[in-house]
């Protein structure tokens, strides 16, 4: 399954406010639904999303069962220096996914 779709501008001017977008594939099974047989479908969700820039955390979100499948995040940050954004999703059943994107700041 494709991991993630990341949208980070390749280059930016120092001081620019830039938008970061991250979409990942996940079923986000709530744990509240039942199968036809009556058993509960076990919860399987992403519980945490983190974005680090050059090792420093700049954005983090906790996720809950009400969030739809294939969660999509969009947030803003200020471009201060060139470097690398690292994205990490963790969740139930040992789910872990990473992605990264570089930016050049002039």
């Amino acid at each position, binding site marked *: 399954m*494709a991991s993630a*779709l990341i*949208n980070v501008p390749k280059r930016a001017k120092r001081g620019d406010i830039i938008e970061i*977008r991250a*979409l990942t594939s996940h079923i*986000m099974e709530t744990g509240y639904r039942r199968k036809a047989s009556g058993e509960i479908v076990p919860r399987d969700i992403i519980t945490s999303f983190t974005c680090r820039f050059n090792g420093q955390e700049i954005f983090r979100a906790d996720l809950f069962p009400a969030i*739809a*499948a*294939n969660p*999509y995040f969009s947030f803003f940050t200020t471009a201060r220096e060139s470097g690398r954004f690292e994205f990490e999703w963790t969740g139930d059943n040992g789910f872990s996914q990473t992605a990264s994107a570089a930016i050049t700041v002039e």
Partner: protein
Amino acid sequence: MKRACAMLVAALLVAAAPLRAAEIPPDQRRSGYSFMGPDSKAMQDDDTANPGMLWVLDGEALWNKRPGAANNACADCHGDARASMKGVAARYPAFDKALGRPVDLEQRINLCRAQHQQAPALDYESHDLLALSAFIANQSRGMPITPDGDSQLAPFIARGHELFMQRQGQLNLACANCHDDNWDKRLAGAAITQGQPTGYPMYRLEWQTLGSLQRRLRGCMTGIRAQAYNYGAPELVELELYLMSRAAGMPIETPAVRP
């Protein structure tokens, strides 16, 4: 919500004049896209926000994989999909001479797997089949739907048209009752739309996943309380065929996003 929908369908049924059977004039045809709100449109337009692109990327990986005993990848015969698959989805379902009947894109993929890859068929709505069909159809994005011109298709299109006009189910509604005669109205909060098959497989927010045109058709049939045809049934392919001929000239949007 469901009950309200059913009541509205019933009200529509009572109020509906006899089937008008007026086809939509070409200049009034509209993709489901034009009925959506700005948020859903923005989601479809941005490839990094459109969840359907996750399947397209997976399809690209599968295109180069060798799944069967023949050790053949799609790419080994068809090369670069960007060139070889351009426009293909725009003319499917197409007539298969060996079978003597039309096959849709999903069936073509499975025929290829059986004949050239010696790989097991993929199930309808399975992740891999959706991924491959989304990847292939994505190569036709922006191209006009140009139905296969094979004259042997004519009787199948006619049967699809008949099915489209045929009242069925406990609500006794034909596809045409909503999608030809009342597409400019609303059913509860939702636009009825014209049922143009421009963006399949598409990401439906209600499904929270990608789905095929056959899934959509089966959903409609269940909605009018008819017994839905099984996946791969000739009737569904005939309906797909008619819908594509009805939408001839409209651009492909795969992967579309719909509410």
